[in-house]
């Protein structure tokens, strides 16, 4: 770090981050009226005090419990009271937090925690105002807020905008003008389908002069089958999906049919409540269909440890823990896992309550094992599978008949066969009397004899062929299945062998109750999750949609809505969206349409320095959302614009090009794979085989999680390793070559027209004059450099994509490959416009 250059470099990067740390939660009205426990006080207590004076009874110090009013007001063993309403000066709480004496000062000095003067003042004022308590906002059912009245009717477009605009008004900020239509079509296509628009689609939109052209575009995108693929990638992170079992051996797992179910469910816009119920408990629905049972595979994505000598119960227990934690995270934004070892330190969940939910998940049949599995058809191939199954059964029965016939001839054959013509081993066995042969030897004779029959061999070939046909339409997939009930104990300190009291299924008392008469199994629990009384589920869901579109959630900590979470940037908007989502029948596509047709979403992403300094993360939405594209989109987009892209949907995972590793897994097979042939080499990223121990390297480089555990948001980074991927990875080199060829073939006859075409392919807009000139000069310079060594030019134009089409000049193709490589690395290309 001594180099100035390096320091500057870092600053270039961190500048973005450092500039403004806007107090997002505070929404302006600081006119000092009433202090709110939920908004103002609780966060301070939670951060500084609850660790020792909160809900966790085991960690409690000095018999003081500050998270509940009755306790906080009662007399302490020392004879003092922490809080005396109306009298901050007599309240021990204030005395302690303001004390200069390290022996009594709170929080204890060694914790490193200290209240600021402002925080102390808030507590003082709150006590003066009677120290009223209220529940944390996220545990109260959202009320549908009244829409803010608009002062400027020219801008807002709908309810979302009314909230956004009202807040901007408060902050004395103006929204940014609408994005150009060329940028907008690219933005919304990338967001809804994970793919850029083709030039034709772009033109169709640009030429559509109807007032609702944009709504029509959005409808087309929502109806595209690519929609389900794009949003499935979000759920693969949530579900910790992988095509391997995890841990040391990380053997393969076949559960891709669940991934295909996900795509179908999203495309068919299965309502979010039903979607939830099927994933958590599809197997328990009355007369569950295969589809619903496949859906229940959501929680079969937990890892198994197949290492010799491992204790199955230990890993089964770990899977149940994972299911509880993942469910509460994904649907309720709650870090319930904290209560696994002790009562939650910040939120009102006891350890006993943790194991009550655990009990709900504790009776499934799987036991650190792949089974139970369901045999089923590939998407849309049920009828074919039925035919293949019956054909296989026919061929098997014909084979059985033939086997019987042939076997009945074996005795004669053994007597008469010319032993000299037999393989050595068979010739040796045949000299033994039947009762002197081992089973293995006898089997060998039988097998050999059958193969001597032309008819039998033909029948066997029929079976093999029928099986091969079936394998093209049938698969297995891991599903949930109830087994015998297991008693559930509180696991003391979270240790599975350390059994405490026995508990029955239940839900936390701090949340809404289970309706009377409900059987609290997984199905009852899933229904409880999507009950309209649930204060969290719809908020968490709409926040996730928001996060995907705007780059950051209304609640930034999308995994945590509880006391330790971040306050929402637009609380009323969050609650409005949450209630609207339920009101419209949990209709995800309708919600997405509402969001992407808002004027807020449609703003240009240009930014002034002032705004960038004031709101670097765009929490206030005073401009369009511009963030680097997710890992999957980085790949899919490059394939798409270069023309290599395969639109093939569904099916077993594929093996695109990846660098050779040359290593074995521990105790295992090679970590390399044979590249898929044909279009499978160019499939969307979500079809790439996901091995948890060795995930596809370029995906990880672009911040995809390893998927051993549920992940609710990806932290976006920008690193040189990413630059190396899109510059040099064979996948991207091949895409640049294809792009170069495409430009040559389709881009007209002049260098200028080709440059313009290439940029349009990449960015769905025309280049400016300056851009065009710079690309032309790049082409000329590179072509001149390459002309020195034609063999290098040929390599550059053909490896790995293959020979040039007839009549193509390799020097041109190589130079256009370089141009393609640049286009595929433009900042604008890698970012949402």
């Amino acid at each position, binding site marked *: *770090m001594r180099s100035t250059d390096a320091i500057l470099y870092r600053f270039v990067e961190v500048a973005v*981050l450092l500039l*403004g740390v806007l107090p997002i939660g505070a929404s302006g009205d600081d006119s000092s009226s009433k202090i709110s426990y939920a908004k103002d006080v609780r966060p301070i207590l939670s951060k500084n005090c609850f660790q020792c004076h909160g809900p966790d009874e085991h960690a409690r110090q000095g018999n003081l419990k500050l998270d509940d009013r009755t306790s906080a007001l009662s007399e302490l063993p020392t004879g003092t009271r922490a809080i005396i309403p109306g009298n901050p000066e007599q309240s021990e709480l204030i005395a302690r937090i303001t004390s200069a004496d390290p022996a009594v000062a709170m929080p204890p000095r060694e914790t490193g925690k200290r209240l600021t003067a402002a925080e102390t003042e808030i507590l003082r004022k709150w006590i003066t105002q009677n120290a009223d308590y209220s529940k944390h906002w996220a545990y109260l059912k959202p009320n549908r807020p009244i829409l803010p009245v608009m002062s400027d009717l020219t801008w807002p477009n709908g309810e979302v905008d009314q909230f956004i605009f009202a807040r901007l008004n408060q902050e004395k900020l103006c929204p940014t003008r609408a994005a150009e239509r060329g940028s907008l079509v690219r933005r919304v296509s990338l967001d809804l389908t994970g793919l850029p628009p083709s030039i034709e689609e772009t033109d169709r939109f640009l030429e559509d002069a109807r007032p609702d052209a944009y709504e029509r575009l959005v409808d087309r995108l929502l109806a595209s089958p690519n929609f389900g693929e794009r949003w499935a990638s979000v759920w693969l992170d949530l579900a910790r999906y992988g095509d391997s079992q995890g841990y*040391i051996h990380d053997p393969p797992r076949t559960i891709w049919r669940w991934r295909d179910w996900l795509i179908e469910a999203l495309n068919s816009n299965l309502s979010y409540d039903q979607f939830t119920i099927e994933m958590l408990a599809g197997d328990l629905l009355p007369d569950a269909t295969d589809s619903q049972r496949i859906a229940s595979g959501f929680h079969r994505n937990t890892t198994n440890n197949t290492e*010799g000598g491992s204790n199955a119960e230990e890993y089964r227990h770990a899977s149940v823990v994972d299911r509880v934690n993942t469910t509460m995270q994904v649907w309720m934004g709650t870090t319930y896992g904290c209560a696994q070892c002790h009562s939650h330190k910040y939120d009102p969940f006891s350890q006993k309550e943790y194991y009550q939910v655990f009990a709900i998940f504790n009776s499934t049949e799987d036991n650190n094992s792949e089974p139970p599995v369901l045999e089923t058809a590939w998407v849309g191939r049920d009828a074919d599978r039925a035919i293949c199954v019956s054909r296989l059964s026919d061929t098997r029965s014909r084979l059985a008949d033939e086997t019987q016939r042939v076997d009945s001839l074996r005795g004669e054959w053994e007597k008469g066969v010319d032993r000299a013509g037999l393989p050595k081993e068979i010739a040796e066995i045949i000299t033994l009397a039947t009762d002197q042969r081992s089973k293995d030897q006898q089997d060998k004779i039988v097998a050999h004899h059958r193969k001597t029959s032309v008819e039998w061999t033909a029948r066997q070939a029929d079976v093999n062929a029928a099986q091969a046909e079936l394998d093209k339409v049938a698969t297995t997939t891991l599903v949930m299945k109830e087994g015998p009930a297991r008693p559930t104990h509180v696991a003391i300190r979270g240790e599975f062998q350390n059994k405490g009291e026995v508990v029955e299924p239940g839900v936390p008392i701090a949340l809404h109750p289970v309706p009377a008469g409900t059987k609290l199994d997984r199905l009852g629990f899933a229904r409880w999750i999507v009950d309209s009384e649930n204060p969290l589920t719809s908020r968490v869901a709409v926040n996730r949609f928001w996060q995907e579109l705007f780059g950051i959630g209304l609640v930034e900590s999308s995994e945590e809505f509880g006391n330790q979470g971040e306050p929402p940037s637009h609380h009323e908007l969050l609650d409005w969206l949450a209630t609207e989502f339920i009101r419209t029948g949990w209709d995800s596509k309708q919600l997405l349409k509402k969001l992407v047709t808002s004027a807020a979403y449609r703003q240009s992403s240009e930014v002034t320095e002032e705004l960038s300094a004031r709101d670097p993360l765009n929490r206030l939405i005073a401009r369009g959302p511009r963030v680097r594209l997710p890992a999957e989109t980085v790949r899919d987009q490059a394939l798409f614009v270069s023309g290599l892209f395969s639109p093939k949907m569904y099916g077993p995972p594929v093996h695109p090009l990846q660098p050779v590793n040359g290593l*074995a897994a521990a105790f295992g097979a090679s970590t390399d794979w044979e590249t898929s042939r044909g279009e499978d080499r160019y499939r969307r990223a979500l079809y790439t085989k996901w091995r948890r121990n060795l995930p596809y390297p370029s995906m990880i480089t672009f911040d995809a999680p390893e998927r051993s555990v549920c992940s609710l948001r990806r932290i976006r980074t920008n690193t040189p390793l990413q*630059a190396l991927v899109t510059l040099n990875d064979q996948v991207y080199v091949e895409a640049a070559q294809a792009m170069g060829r495409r430009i040559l073939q389709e881009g007209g006859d002049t260098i200028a027209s080709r440059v313009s075409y290439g940029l349009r392919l990449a960015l769905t807009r025309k280049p400016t004059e300056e*851009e065009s000139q710079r690309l032309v000069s790049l082409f000329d310079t*590179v072509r001149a*450099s390459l002309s020195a060594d034609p063999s290098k030019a040929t390599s550059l134009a053909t490896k790995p994509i293959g020979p040039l089409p007839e009549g193509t000049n390799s020097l041109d193709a190589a130079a256009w490959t370089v141009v393609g490589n640049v286009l595929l690395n433009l900042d604008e290309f890698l970012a949402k416009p």
Partner: protein
Amino acid sequence: MTINQLFSFDDLSRATRRHFLGSGSLGLGGLALGSLLNESLKAAPSADEPFAPSPAQFPAKVKNVIFLSMSGGPSHLDLFDYKPELVQRDGQDCPASLTDGKPFAFTSGTPKLLGTPQKFQQYGQSGAWVSAALPKIAEIADDLTFIKSLHTEQFNHGPAELLMLTGIPRTAGRPSIGSWVTYGLGSQSRDLPGFIVFTSGGSLPSSGKAGWGSGFLPSVYQGVQCRTGGDPVLYLSDPEGMDRAVRRQSLDALNDLNRLQASKLKNAETATRIAQYEMAFRMQVVVPELMDISKEPAHLLEDYGAQPGAASFANNCVLARRLIEKGVRFVQLSDWGWDFHGTNPGEDLRDNLVKRCTLMDRPVAALIRDLKARGLLEETLVVWMGEFGRTPFREGRTAAGPNIGRDHHPFSNTMFMAGGGLRPGITHGVTDELGFNVVENPVHIHDVQATILHLLGLDHTRLTYRFQGRDYRLTDVSGKVVKEILA
């Protein structure tokens, strides 16, 4: 943007690491956030985020770490922890009082005690016991700090190694120790990642890539695995047929076009993008130069037992020193092949252990001597350890077989460290006369992790990261610094 401007913002004092990380723009080199902020904010520690990494809570003793991970669990009883009593009782039943109620991976019933077939001797001023299988390490025994009371609760490779490298046994997907360190301290190298990993032994370690993953930390902190075949860093080579001049021409155009974009949208991330590509361009030159050990003096290569172009632990040791010299913060060498069960002749604790050791003994000793000669050992911490020890008895499955092996043993193990801030030439902790249990000064894996962080000037209880609403740390909820081994 200058430093002064940057730090003139009032909000900065409220800024937390979480805000930086959440904002979506971090570079590989930009890892010095911790130290950068810390230097500037020393006077005013953030009250908002007391758990924010604060590297200067106490002065660091070392700047860098070379972590030698002996994957598979080398036998402490045949390398360092000499037990004459065990030799004497070789072949006798292992006392039931020791094994009762304890799980072993491949052994049940009453196993037979196994005295070491290796010869032991005391070395140096310190009189450290070292097996004849490690003649070179024996020579530098006075530079080493041994812990003979290491223990864990994991007896399977995967979980045990995960615990050792990530602090958590069962959940892959937690940040590895190297990620935590680079997250806390950044890196001093401007052209290289801060955390670099090499593997040897022909296999990935038991914990797979999770052993150097960044878990929930931003991916900039993940270990970059350098490879011995192909590109040393993935995707480092330009496409075939593209020379450096053409790469430069294309990057110049890319930068110009990105600048045009930046002037239009004024988006700060575009500037980051330009810097990101320039660093990639420099890495393309620097990394291959670094990986080329052919210019090291012949006698030095001879010391290490390294050969230019080979794929070996010895070569990796030479590279580790070269990277440390360049300011790389954390270098991890995973050496596979220490799982001596006795299931085949290769896993026999007699001659084949000696054979296996020659691939490790010489390079490790050479590395420590080399670092010392260059004055680098004072600012570097070398850690040598495996995920667990081995049982004092013969492994159950192979007990009647021709090859002598031991089972996984979580209850005792030996490790050593060398480098700044340590008391060299001492041994900490004692096991019982059979080497089964720790009887004095037990040191848990979390304690080792706490100690490593401590030597780097990091408090393991305060190096935290908020994930899923909770502050996580490497040592989970335990760990204490082993003060007795500190200078």
